């Protein structure tokens, strides 16, 4: 089952397959809310019943606590890699420096930026497997709705999340 009430500071052992999916972003900043909208959809899907699904809101640093104590964490967020807004990206963070070299930016307006948080996780010796799945936003001005092009990407993002989970040897 998904734990709607579980949240970012709760680093107790999550579920039997020990995978967390965290949506980050501000749902009142148009496409910045893609991470939150996706996890709202995941909670309705039976496939994810054994995965812990978390609404991370706009609190970036707390990713450190989430990364501890699970075998894999999948972050869903608006990300800017300089690619087209149409492209759904799945970045496996094997090497933080390599990730940073790609100039990937989380566009969510949190505290420390995502690169710094990933560096910090590495520097603290947390070796959880981390993947980031997202899409480049078209519009991050104030607004409740996703751009149609971004909203249309939700099924594709969910498919990529499923692929990532299936890769984990359960």
């Amino acid at each position: 089952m998904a734990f709607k009430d579980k949240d970012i500071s709760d680093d107790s052992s999550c579920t039997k397959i020990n995978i967390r999916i965290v949506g980050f972003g501000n749902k009142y900043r148009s496409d910045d809310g893609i991470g939150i909208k996706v996890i709202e959809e995941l909670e309705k899907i039976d496939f994810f019943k054994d995965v812990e699904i978390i609404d991370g809101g706009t609190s970036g640093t707390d990713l450190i606590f989430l990364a501890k104590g699970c075998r894999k964490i999948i972050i869903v967020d608006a990300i800017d890699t300089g690619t087209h807004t149409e492209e759904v990206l799945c970045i496996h963070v094997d090497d933080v420096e390599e990730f940073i070299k790609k100039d990937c930016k989380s566009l969510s307006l949190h505290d420390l930026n995502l690169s710094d948080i990933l560096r910090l996780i590495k520097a603290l010796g947390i070796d959880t497997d981390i993947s980031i799945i997202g899409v480049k936003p078209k519009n991050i001005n104030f607004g409740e709705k996703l751009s149609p092009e971004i909203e249309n990407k939700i099924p594709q993002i969910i498919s990529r999340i499923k692929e990532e989970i299936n890769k984990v040897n359960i």
Partner: protein
Amino acid sequence: MVNNLNVEVSPVSRVEGHGDLIINVKDRKIEKLMFRIPESPRFFEAMLVGRKYDEPSHITSRICGICSVAHTCASIKATERALDIQPTEQTINLRKLIYHHENVQSNVLHVYFLAAPDFFGAGSVISLVETHPEVVNIALRTKKMANDMVRIIGGRAVHPIRTVVGGFTKLPTEEEMIIMRKMLEDCYPDLEKSLEVLKTVKIPDFERETEYISISDANDYALYDGNIKSTDGWEIDDQDYLDKINEKVVQHSTAKHCWANRDSYMVGALARFNNNYERLTDNAKEYAEELGLKAPCYNTFMNNIAQFVEIVHSVDDSIRLIDKILEEGLDEDKAMVDIKPGAGRGVGVVEAPRGLLIHDYTYNDKGRIEKANLIIPTNMNYANIENDMKALVPEIIDKSEDEIRLACEMLIRAYDPCISCSTHLLSVKLINK
């Protein structure tokens, strides 16, 4: 030494969101100094119009992940005042408890992760892991404690869901209260270690007296509730904020500037400390003394030290609140009070971690919001940041351009601006030194 200075720092890192500071010095005189904020439309005020009483606190909680409890409480207070709802004392005590720990979450983040790298000459918190690992570990433990406190009381570590108009949808259990008390007790060794580390830090020597505004209460070091008070000697009921707090549009920034008694004022931890020092716990006062922080303090850079002293106060006062709540016994019958939607106007004023936060709602006779006004602390500080810069730059004009750039960035960071709730782009430019 150079006579002309032309510096742009873009972006000012380690500040929430982004903004833009431009300083142009010619023949050692400031020709142009602007802290420019491309504020987005006041979306949230417009979005609140037409909403029922139970919606605004959840919507405004999402304005910012760092100040979500503050927005929640300001919103709830505005609505309760408008609809003449009086929450129980138990509710108020629990709100004060959760409130302390958003302040701790935010102050830890700022003091240890965003400002400490400046103090230790490290480029960022990442470098601190190498040079001062214990500091980073203390920060993480303290932040985790505060997250857990907010989660246990509010149901989530950010954007709380149980804190609503009229009370709480679910109360923490007595067992959870005891667990929280233990978590707080366990913080003290880390606070003591932090004190020893912070005593070694060299805070820039810069003073400029200004007007300091915060809420204030006769019994509490006010964070959740109180009158609005100024170091210039005035104090007003929070419902009358418009009598003193003024906003104006300035040409170079779409973010409004605020003023009260003078052309600018400061809000935040240092303002609270200057107005409410006497209401700190004795322990927090001792920490302040050890760190050389005395009220009134006119050094903006000491805002970060005031934030640390507030962490100590919040831990002390939380234990007192838990003991009080446990002594009186948690009572489900006092969790919520009756709500009758209707017409009315109410103002909710709280201290967000960054300072005074005002929500002002008018409900129509259909029980819907007709008008909303939100004034956020970072907006209140903009004009004061500019005035500080105008005083600081001539004092350090003989330093190298890099040193000036760093000092300016540090000064902005000292305010702990959370620009993400008012705008989202910050860069600093120094032109023609």
